[in-house]
């Protein structure tokens, strides 16, 4: 049986099922990160003293990672635009760049984490580090998830382009929406944890 409304628009929603599905998923993600941000506010406002992020964390590395993630968002949207222009080769280049930039983000994060562990700074050390590791750790898992999906569309999943290019383009748009959300979360995490 064929999956319905992958390309054609449903009359009641005005959308494909994939589009409404990814937005509902992102809504649940907003609440997940929202709960953690609320916890952060609660813990910070309740603490007698709270360290400035830049006294503990590495701001230049995080700034670099912000630039990396924003760049990956652009390459992601350019990958989708390439498919819209019917240029599959360019799509592969942009999608490859997106995955690569995601990898760079994770490598930088690895160095940041290992430096903290080397200095005996763990989630159990204090509330600041607990919330830092929880929020950035969860965000990192999202980066990994997004990279896995993007790698699938770059590799084996790209076969769909030959048989149903419109459906493939929609799938790339949906994985892009998730990737941009991951970027959006980092845009708030960066000043909240590192600069304030």
């Amino acid at each position, binding site marked *: 049986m064929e999956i319905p409304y992958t390309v054609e628009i449903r009359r009641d*929603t*005005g*959308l494909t099922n994939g*589009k*409404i599905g990814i*937005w*509902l998923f992102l*809504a649940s993600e*907003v*609440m997940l990160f*929202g*709960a953690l*941000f*609320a*916890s952060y*506010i*609660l813990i910070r*406002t*309740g603490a007698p003293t709270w360290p400035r992020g*830049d006294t503990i964390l590495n*701001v230049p590395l995080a*700034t670099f990672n*912000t*630039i990396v993630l*924003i*760049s990956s*968002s*652009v390459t*992601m*949207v*350019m990958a989708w*635009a390439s498919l*819209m*222009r*019917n240029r599959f080769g360019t799509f592969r280049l942009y999608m490859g760049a997106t995955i690569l930039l995601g990898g760079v983000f994770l490598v930088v994060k690895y160095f940041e984490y290992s430096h903290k562990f080397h200095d005996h700074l763990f989630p159990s050390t204090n509330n600041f580090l607990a919330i830092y590791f929880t929020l950035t750790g969860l965000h990192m898992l999202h980066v990994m998830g997004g990279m896995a999906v993007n790698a699938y569309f770059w590799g084996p999943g790209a076969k769909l382009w030959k048989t149903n290019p419109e459906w493939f383009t929609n799938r790339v748009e949906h994985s*892009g*929406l998730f990737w*941009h*959300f991951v*970027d*959006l979360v980092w*845009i*708030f995490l*960066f*000043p*909240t944890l590192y*600069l*304030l």
Partner: protein
Amino acid sequence: MTTDHAVDIDKHVRIYITVFVALMVLTIVTVAISRFHLPVPVAVSVALLVAIIKGSLVACYFMHLISEKKLIYAVLVLTAAFFIALLALPVLTVHDGFWIR
């Protein structure tokens, strides 16, 4: 693909590049402002304002929210309401649980 469609995508691509440049500039602005060591309430307000502008640019242009269907806006309005409620909960505790008095 029609010529109109191709022109439309070209226009989109130009917007993506402009937004990218704006996001880079705003990232530098965020870091630069933090170097002034402003009082905490001011620093939080400014940092959040810049983050909201950057987030809006990503959501509106990269996620195409500037021209989406009504149902998606409805889902997001509902999400925003619950998100604000969630963030407001810690603020209530500042008043030492006035609701149980």
